[in-house]
């Protein structure tokens, strides 16, 4: 099981990141859930300085940009086995 968190207050890029993650992983053999973290107090506990932030199983993987789909898939495969 992979827990993916999207850190962002609802800006356009945060929504786009969420869509990208869903699109990238929909065809993959990854059991995942996406949680949107929109409260600044919660977002900032991850110590990020720009949104959107992408977190997989509590590891911050990217901030302030939207990673490529292939990168998202690679991370998902890497972090789902890490647990």
């Amino acid at each position, binding site marked *: 099981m992979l827990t993916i968190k999207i850190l962002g*207050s609802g*800006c356009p890029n945060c929504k786009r990141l969420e869509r990208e993650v869903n699109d990238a992983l929909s065809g993959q053999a990854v059991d995942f859930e996406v949680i949107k973290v929109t409260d600044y*107090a919660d977002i*900032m506990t991850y110590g990020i*300085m*720009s*949104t959107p932030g992408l977190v997989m199983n*509590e590891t911050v*993987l990217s901030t*302030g940009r939207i990673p490529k789909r292939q990168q998202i898939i690679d991370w998902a495969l890497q972090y789902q086995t890490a647990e």
Partner: protein
Amino acid sequence: MQLAQLKPTRKDQRPFLIVAVLAVLWFIAYNNLQAIADWVTYTVLDFSREDQLGEALNFFIYDTPKLLLLLSGMIFLITLVQTFIDTNKVREVVEKRGEGIGNLMASLFGAITPFCSCSSVPLFIGFVQAGIPLGITFSFLITSPIMNEVAFVLLLGLFGWKVALLYLASGITIGIVAGLILGRMNLENYVEDFVYAIKAKGGQPGVAVAIEEKPTWEERFQQAGESTREIVGKVWLFVIIGIGIGAFIHGFVPEDALSDVMGAGAWWSVPAAVLLGIPLYSNAAGIIPIVSALLGKGAALGTVLAFMMSVVALSLPEMIILRKVLKPRLIAIFVGVVAVSIILTGYLFNLVI
């Protein structure tokens, strides 16, 4: 990653080649715009050179592609530079400086980062978490929205590089000065309490941060290309509408029609322009071409610049977002200090130029 290392070096040069070819095409197009506009208006459409409608049309045919080309090219360069900026590193650098130099650096940093009001809050909290004084944080928060890359490029295209640099220099100065003033006012109590609560908690032990790889040039070009498409896609229509209205003013409004209202002699025009600019926000891209046409009709440059800074720096959406981390009183002080700084800058320019 491993694949990238195996790639032959020739492939690495391809993105540079593409960018170089585009740059050459860009220069050829940009340098021939006036000739094309003249040819279309006076040869193809057969207007006489004295015709007012012809003049307005020529202005429009020349300015529209010019500004859109300039926007695409410059925004690409600016966003390319931005791919090198790491907010965490910036925080580390600013953290080590005290008042003064810290304000200057925060303000410079604010000038080059893209401003999206939704990214200002995490950055604000990040600065506070690092123990960076509030005044320095405000220097960033003030300069960042004042220095709008679209506004900068439009000024460059319509008013020339002197005015564009003047805008850059005054934006940075306003950030430094207003930050220094706000820093002296002991406003820490007017920051929302939860911001400090996060600070006290510190880093969560369970949170690990994966080290991000440095992007390749190809990725940087791609990123800059995407950002450019996004930014230009958002503003092009406003720019064209603005140029359309500007062209009309250019052709039909008599010279000096505005010198009484917006000229340097009218003392009240600067504060009026700033007040008027606060509720106007999303149309900043369209306002500049209009304003540039007004300048040719007797409006004063200081008034015009003050108006533009007010449009881009003080806006309702931004205040609503800042409300999440600042108490209302601090927002009011923030708006007041920034507005007064902009008004003074406007007067200064009207006096000097």
